[in-house]
């Protein structure tokens, strides 16, 4: 089992506990949120605020995956869930053209009067802020976003 701080092996390389395969269309993102929040609810170490964080991060990843397909066709987005003892992993995978997160365009700072000219580019910073680890694996075959949330065990006495 991976210890905190140790690199967690990306989920896609191992069998997932739950796999959700949805059409790459906007109307299915709410289903991904529903599934993730109900899976996360089964981890009693996670408070509602952490479940909300994960739900939003997954929603952002699914949105990016869907937007990777332009124009939208019959493509799919695959979400894989894996329960670790002290963490959980969600992998959102598309087969779009891929992107390099280090080359995302710079946006003006939020205090810059020009900021309202940019409506996009908030999803990746949100994902990074909401979960404990975010990894992007992009190749010609698509992009995989792996999100990890640590679930510290409930201290004895609080059970």
């Amino acid at each position, binding site marked *: 089992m991976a210890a905190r701080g140790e690199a967690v092996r990306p989920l896609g390389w191992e069998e997932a506990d739950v796999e959700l395969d949805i059409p790459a269309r*906007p*109307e299915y*993102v*709410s289903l991904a*949120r529903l599934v993730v929040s109900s899976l996360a609810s089964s981890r009693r170490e996670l408070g509602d*605020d952490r479940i*909300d964080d994960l*739900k*939003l991060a997954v*929603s*952002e990843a*699914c*949105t990016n995956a*869907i*937007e990777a397909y332009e124009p939208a066709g019959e493509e799919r987005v695959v979400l894989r869930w894996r329960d670790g003892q002290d963490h959980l992993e969600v992998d959102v995978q598309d087969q779009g053209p891929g992107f390099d997160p280090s080359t995302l365009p710079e946006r003006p*700072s*939020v*205090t810059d009067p020009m*900021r*309202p*000219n*940019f*409506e*996009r580019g*908030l*999803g990746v*910073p*949100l994902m990074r*802020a*909401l979960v404990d680890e975010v990894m992007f694996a992009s190749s010609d075959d698509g992009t995989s976003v792996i999100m990890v949330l640590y679930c510290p065990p409930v201290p004895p006495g609080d059970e």
Partner: protein
Amino acid sequence: MDLGFEVDQRGDYTVLAVRGEVDVYTAPRLRERLIELVSQGSHQVVVDLEGVDFLDSTGLGVLVGGLKRLRSHDGDMILVCTQPRILKVFEITGLTKVFSIHDSVESATAA
């Protein structure tokens, strides 16, 4: 999943109350409503987010776009939001510095 809207005029302010989940699927409807209000001459708009259960970056993008549109008409957009999970999204992205966020429609329209 649907997005609900209610429009109410309070003095100089047009109050758009939004209900439901704002994401990549529903955000275009919010954008349309905002564009509609601006084209009808509402330039002081209060967007009441108290009935919103979920808001992601596509929703934020639409609000930022609405603010920009209103400002180009010398107008403004004021938000009403007290829910911690929605406020958090504005805080993380730094948009609390871009929007004026109030805790009630009364306080927003008294501004």
